[in-house]
């Protein structure tokens, strides 16, 4: 948004203009809001990534012995699932920017289904670990694995709820070419959830 806002005409009360901010201004504000939220999320996961680095450097042999227990193929499949869900969100946003409401709804449904698929695969992975006697209390590696993938899983769940709410609003025809801020904002959050997994996948499944 490089365009400068038109100056408030009434010199008497300059604050008045801000109270009736244009949709473009509220969209910019909402965008900065979600980026601020993402900043807090980066540092929330950041604390855990720091813990991972500290213990990885301290117990390299434990990490090397444990990471082979994780299913690399399932991890890769889940990576593909999340990447596809990021695509469908991006396509949905591109669609509503052109005013295509049906395409937006289709993309949101696909995204939510992919997110559910991710959690189902995660569920099977976890139960398989439990069946082999690998629990969060087993050692530091599995403690971190369950904590970080669990926290990420909660974010996937939260994302499904948010995207579900956006889907309901889309079903009511609330979004158009000129107004689709909630779609853009929830989309940014969803891409962040994908971003976290992009790092979790190699750190736990690929490098020992």
């Amino acid at each position, binding site marked *: 948004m*490089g*365009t400068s806002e038109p100056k408030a005409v009434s010199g008497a009360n300059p604050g008045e203009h801000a109270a009736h901010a244009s949709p473009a201004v509220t969209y910019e504000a909402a965008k900065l809001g979600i980026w*601020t939220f*993402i*900043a*807090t999320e980066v540092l929330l996961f*950041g604390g855990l990534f720091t813990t991972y680095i500290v213990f990885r*450097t301290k117990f390299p042999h434990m990490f090397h012995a444990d990471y082979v227990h994780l299913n690399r193929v399932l991890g890769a499949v889940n990576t593909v699932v999340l990447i596809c869900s990021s695509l469908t969100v991006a396509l949905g946003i*591109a669609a509503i920017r052109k005013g295509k409401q049906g395409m937006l709804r289709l993309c949101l449904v696909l995204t939510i289904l992919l997110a559910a698929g991710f959690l189902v695969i995660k569920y099977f992975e976890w139960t398989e670990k439990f069946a082999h006697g690998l629990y969060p209390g087993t050692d530091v590696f599995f403690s971190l694995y369950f904590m970080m993938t669990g926290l990420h899983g909660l974010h996937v769940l939260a994302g499904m709820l948010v995207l579900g709410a956006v889907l309901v609003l889309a079903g009511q025809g609330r979004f158009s070419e000129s107004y689709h801020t909630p779609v853009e904002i929830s989309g940014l959050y969803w891409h962040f959830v994908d971003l976290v997994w992009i790092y979790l996948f*190699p750190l736990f499944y690929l490098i020992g």
Partner: protein
Amino acid sequence: MTKEHGTGYGIYVIVWIALLVLTGATVAVSYANLGLMNVAVALLIASVKASLVALFFMHLKFENKLVWTFALVPIFFLLLVVGGTLSDTLFR
């Protein structure tokens, strides 16, 4: 920046294909035993993927300086946290 129109579907599909190829590459490399290079390659590929997601899916490429600041400042703090912690734990 004027309106955010014009961004078609094509670019997203291209980025999506790139992300899939990079995922395949990082999995393939993980089966080779390169020692510490495995870690470097995995993190490099992850960072390229993360950049693609941030630049295109999250539209950072088309954003102004203010949004860029909001996106980069947390990364700076993350590096500060990691660096500060390691400067302690690595030298005990």
